[in-house]
């Protein structure tokens, strides 16, 4: 082998970079976030699978309808009327941002810009 003084260190650096996740996590797979679900409400505005997969699209749609098109009409789910609002509808049941929103968002480093404008509810212990 020629130039092994340069090539072998180069390969070692390459392998270290590729295996970065292995030695960064040092064998600790960590805890999966646990959501605190509301105790008094049984049902969300959409089925669980839907809301879990598409809540961000729904919130965006609400924002566009309410803020841009002035369509503030209430919508009905199982006989109950809901307002298209993050603070008054979502956070009504999910009282804690830290124990609900942030658990998954922090785990997967999703940084939604909801709270750039909205006020996060006051956290009660």
């Amino acid at each position, binding site marked *: *082998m*020629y*130039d*092994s003084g340069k*090539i072998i260190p*180069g*390969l070692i650096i*390459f*392998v270290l970079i*590729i*295996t*970065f*996740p*292995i030695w*960064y*996590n*040092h*064998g*600790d*797979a*960590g805890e*999966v*976030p646990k959501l605190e679900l509301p105790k008094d409400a049984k049902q969300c505005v959409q089925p669980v*699978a*839907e809301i*879990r*997969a*598409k809540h*961000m*699209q729904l*919130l*965006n749609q609400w924002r566009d309808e309410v803020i841009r098109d002035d369509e503030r009409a209430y919508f009905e789910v199982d006989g109950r009327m809901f307002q298209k609002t993050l603070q008054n509808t979502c956070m009504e049941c999910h009282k804690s941002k830290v124990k609900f929103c942030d658990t*998954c968002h922090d*785990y*997967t*480093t*999703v*940084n*939604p*810009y909801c709270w750039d404008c909205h006020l996060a509810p006051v956290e009660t212990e």
Partner: protein
Amino acid sequence: MKYTFPLAAVIALVLIAWIGSNIPGMQYLFGIVIPYLAIATFIIGFCYRVVQWAKSPVPFRIPTTCGQQYSPLPWIKQNKLEAPANTSQVVARMFLEVVLFRSLWRHTKAEIHDGPKLTYESSKWLWLFGLMFHYSFLVVVFRHMRLFLDPVPWFIQVIEFGDGILQIGSPGMYITDATIILGLVFLFGRRLITRNLRYLSLANDYFPLFLIFGIAVTGIMMRFYFRTDVDIVAIKRLAVGLATFQPVIQAEISSLFYIHLFLVSVLLAYFPYSKLMHMGGVFLSPTRNLANDSRMRRHINPWNPDIKPHSYASYEDEFREFMVENDIPVEKELPPKAE
């Protein structure tokens, strides 16, 4: 057509993962076993290829130069990047090559006009879209590290923030989602549209393009269009699990995810066998990484046999007897025979 076979191969891979991941229990094959085999093939194969290259002697300096070489005459100005004379100049040249694809900047387009007249014209498109594609891919890989690392280090978050800075839609669109597709479309399109390039292109030129295109499209579909069952927490748990050797599939994950992961696994496993090895090869290109110093240093071919000097006098000493016998004139006669 040389692109139909690779296209069919990528479609077949998609179908394998799609159908396979819907068979109960096969999620462990597509989610855990195949990714491990793929990354092992990638790392071992990559190192093996580089070591094989390193075993090939490069006896002479063969840099491609396109500038004035070093001259001791003080009024002749050396082009230090195009004709590097020492290691530090080579390092500068290699750095610009690896980071900015400097040699593609010289890319020209040859055309035959009526006459017949051959013209060469500067064509920076390959450089532009090549750079766009490679950097997009790099950023995409870095962004994905948020799924493999727990907690996510700050520099990954910085890259992700920068990539999503346009804040278009929700979930937010990434700039690199658009630019990697744009780069791929150009790199594929130029092989179709340029006549001489279409002639040169082989199945193994098209296959990686289709494969990476498939990876990008399935990724974009998962993020923006078919979000059902793309359970990001379960996916992160699996990815971190893979990196800590404790993989767990804790929920049902959409087939789209397994298709994406399978195509990535195929890309990793295919990498060491393919032209994609230019990732390592660019560092080992003798036409780029050698100094143009043939006129300053003597480079000895390492496989030259060890030939000892053999003067005529000693040659005659060795063969005098036979030379005299065959009437070949000699400088020194044979010693008189002792009776």
